[in-house]
């Protein structure tokens, strides 16, 4: 009977070998995947009883973990929660994370490979590992100006502001209205958290939507920057070239005509391109759209970054779109060229276009995270500026465009953005949106010759009469305040 016993010994060995291999597979190979699953309560519990790193702006925290008594050792607290919510996002036991809390989670929670040495030291010293901190590119004064500007338009204002440093791509301000209080979602009172989440989900104004980066709108006349850039880049036009003006543009294949906003005649039937920019002349830019064709404008839009997600440091950043094909066929090309029709862009993307012009034609990669630090405040990583799109327009075209935009602020539709002693370049926009109130836009940068800040402001809805909504009236003062805050 010994032969079968020996065989069964081999069978048993195979069974145990299977157990050993499978345990290794489970606890070594697939462990990271299992730990990363959203419903893994162990990992969440551990994160909640660990000191999470702070999110800093100008050296002061806008989000930090404070020690509390209770089931979990640390509570996430947000200073100025509503103002910074679109950037910080929330950090909730029940509902997970968003914003920078999500995109920089590995650093903040302390599990990032860059924190490996710190973790080993903590483990050897038998200390709870801590998370690293994240220092943002935001400028407190600019963020204050942006948020207060939106607030000044009254309760229920929907809008967004983005400010960028053109030479580096640093995001200096990003505000959206309405906003929400992430402290209510970070609470350890889960019943209240559930209540707060329900309230936010039921709110028709969608306070958790980041209108500055995650949503798309028709850009209206601010898109004329792109059309003008396409025209100048084509070589067929100069700022002084004579272009058609007048009351309205006859469109091909249809009896419709394209009028100017407010019904003016742009200062004459034949005007210069600079004049057309100053008066935001729909006839001229509609004409340019037809002449250049949608492909050329689409190419220029993509050179500024349309058609690609601009950055990953916030979740679900929207990709702006200038469609070609049926959507911009025939007469539709004229509408698209003035930022109407099916063109869709985020305020962030319009800020990038503006910053690209301000930076001599190079669109810099926008970024929010300036530095990543270990719990001991050693700098682990500092973001170096890189170009998102080099040569979106040539330096000479960038100079021409800047001069046209300065003229628009000096004596055009954008006079509301004038800053005494500083040369400002800017452009208004008012986009129609079907039956709803129009979108008021303003894009600008200053100082014109050595720009330190580029701003895009978009007001989707404010509690004022429809006829009063125009980029120059509503949005320009906010842009001006943000620029002043940076330049001061």
């Amino acid at each position, binding site marked *: 009977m010994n*032969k079968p*016993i020996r065989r069964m010994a081999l069978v048993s*060995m195979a069974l*145990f070998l299977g157990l050993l291999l499978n*345990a*290794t597979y*489970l*606890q*070594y190979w697939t462990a990271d995947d299992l730990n990363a699953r959203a419903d893994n309560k162990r990992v969440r519990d551990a994160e909640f009883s660990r000191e999470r790193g702070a999110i800093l702006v100008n050296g002061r925290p806008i989000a930090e973990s404070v020690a509390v008594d209770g089931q979990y050792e640390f509570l996430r607290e947000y200073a100025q929660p509503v103002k910074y919510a679109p950037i910080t996002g929330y950090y909730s036991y029940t509902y997970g994370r968003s914003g920078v809390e999500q995109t920089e989670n590995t650093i903040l929670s302390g599990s990032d490979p860059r924190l490996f040495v710190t973790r080993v030291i903590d483990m050897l010293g038998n200390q709870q590992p801590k998370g690293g901190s994240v220092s943002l590119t935001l400028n407190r004064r600019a963020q204050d100006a942006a948020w207060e500007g939106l607030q000044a338009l009254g309760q229920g204002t929907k809008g967004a502001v983005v400010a960028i440093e053109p030479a580096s791509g640093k995001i200096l301000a990003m505000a959206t209205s309405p906003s929400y209080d992430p402290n209510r979602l970070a609470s350890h009172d889960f019943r209240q958290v559930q209540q707060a989440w329900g309230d936010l989900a039921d709110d028709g104004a969608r306070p958790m939507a980041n209108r500055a980066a995650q949503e798309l709108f028709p850009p209206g006349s601010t898109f004329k920057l792109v059309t003008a850039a396409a025209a100048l880049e084509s070589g067929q036009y100069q700022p002084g070239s004579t272009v058609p003006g007048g009351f309205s543009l006859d469109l091909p294949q249809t009896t419709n005509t394209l009028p100017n906003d407010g019904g003016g005649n742009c200062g004459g039937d034949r005007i210069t391109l600079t004049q057309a920019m100053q008066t935001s002349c729909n006839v001229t830019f509609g004409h340019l759209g037809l002449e250049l064709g949608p492909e050329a404008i689409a190419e220029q839009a993509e050179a500024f970054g349309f058609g690609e997600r601009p950055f990953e440091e916030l979740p679900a950043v929207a990709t702006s779109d200038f469609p070609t094909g049926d959507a911009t066929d025939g007469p539709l090309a004229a509408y698209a060229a003035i930022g109407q029709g099916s063109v869709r862009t985020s305020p962030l993307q319009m800020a990038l276009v503006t910053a690209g012009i301000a930076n001599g034609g190079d669109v810099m990669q926008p970024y929010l995270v300036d530095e990543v630090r270990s719990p001991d405040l050693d700098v682990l990583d500092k973001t170096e500026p890189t170009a998102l799109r080099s040569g979106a327009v040539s330096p000479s075209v960038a100079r021409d465009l800047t001069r046209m935009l300065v003229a628009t602020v000096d004596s055009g539709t954008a006079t509301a953005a004038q800053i005494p002693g500083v040369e400002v370049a800017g452009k208004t926009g008012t986009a129609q949106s079907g039956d709803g109130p129009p979108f008021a836009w303003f894009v600008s940068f200053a100082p014109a010759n050595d720009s330190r800040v580029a701003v895009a402001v978009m007001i989707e809805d404010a509690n004022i009469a429809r006829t009063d909504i125009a980029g120059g009236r509503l949005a320009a003062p906010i842009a001006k305040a943000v620029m002043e805050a940076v330049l001061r």
Partner: protein
Amino acid sequence: MSAPATSRRNGSGSVSSGFTHRRRRGAELVLLLLSLAVGIGGYAAVGIGVDGEVPTNILGYGGWLALLVLGCHVVVRRTAPYADPVLLPVVSALNGLGLAMIYRIDLARDGSLAPNQLVWMTLGVILFITVLLALPDHRRLQAFTYTSGFAAIVLLLLPLVPGLGNEIRGARIWISLFGFSFQPGEVAKVLLVIAFAGYLVLHRDALALAGRRLLFVDLPRGRDLGPILGMWAISLAILVLQRDLGSSLLFFGLFLVMLYIATERPGWLIVGGLMFLAGAALAYQLFGHVRIRVLTWLDPFAYDSGYQIIQAMYGMAWGGLVGRGWGQGNPTQTPVPESDFIVAALGEELGLTGVMAIILLYGLIVERGLRTALVCRDAFGKLVASGLAFVVALQVFVIIGGVTKLIPLTGLTSPFISYGGSSLVANWVIIALLLRISDQARRPLPEFTGVTDDDTQVVRTR
């Protein structure tokens, strides 16, 4: 290390090993002290990990554990001096680890399972000692072949008796008596091994020799299929009536392997394997609970019933290579962490390292059991030893394999570690039987001392 001895053939036809085994009781004692360090050290580490201090009753607890284990050692030294020296320390280490883990779960849940488990362990040790004292020779058990078989069947049927049987977590395998819950299947396991061994020793020639050859495999005669058909039916009945996948698989697998060892004919494995597959396929088609088990195993995240296994996997992943440390994990997140899922709880706090150590300890039990079967001189002893060893192997494979998602999850206890009186007591009896057989097997053969007469010989037995 061995003195040369003459090789002899004994009645069963197997060859005794070519050397005399030493008693090795000193080695056993050293290993036992090591195992106590594991058990008592684990208990202290749990206190430090959870409360930041060594449990106040560490002396009483440690003393009691030491008393039990060293008591076993003394009894083995007196009654089975040639018994295998590794089995008892391995069992002591596993039992100590299990007690520490159950105590750790108690601390997390304000429970009081650990003292109960210690009482059960005491009972197990008492039974262990009783078996060694009352059974000087394992061959006496052969007389109880049919008694054990009958008792096993009665025990297996008990949970079906109305008022006595108890359904816990979907399986009707428990009985409640005087406020105690008992899992008769665990005891039936031991009785079945004895019954199978006794039956097979008597009938193995008929089962082994008759038959016809088909494609290189000797297939058994149809008329000899009776016992295997009977066992198959009993296993299916357990599966259907008690909804106990694990025990069903365990009993049928055990019978099949013992049949193969007794007859040395792989044909039985093939016939049995096909019957198992047919039964499994039939059960999958007919019974929802079997189907759900399999589907949950294939993709636990797709079914609500996957919660248990998912939590167990999360726990083990959270443990990683070296574990969170005693008291630093969250094992109560997994359902029934003290019983079916205790290996997952250990994997969470002791990591892959701990799980591997536990699997290897089980492997040692099986290896020592099969080694005992190899050197055993009588067929009955060989069958009992290999049956007991293999039933441990199969049980460990089914439960640890289930918890780590190697095979579909079925409810069984992890021998010596899981909380549960019936399982602990039955497994201590298994070890007592293995030690008794190995004592017989390793004991030097009686030597002839001076022939005084052709008819009369003086035989020295030790």
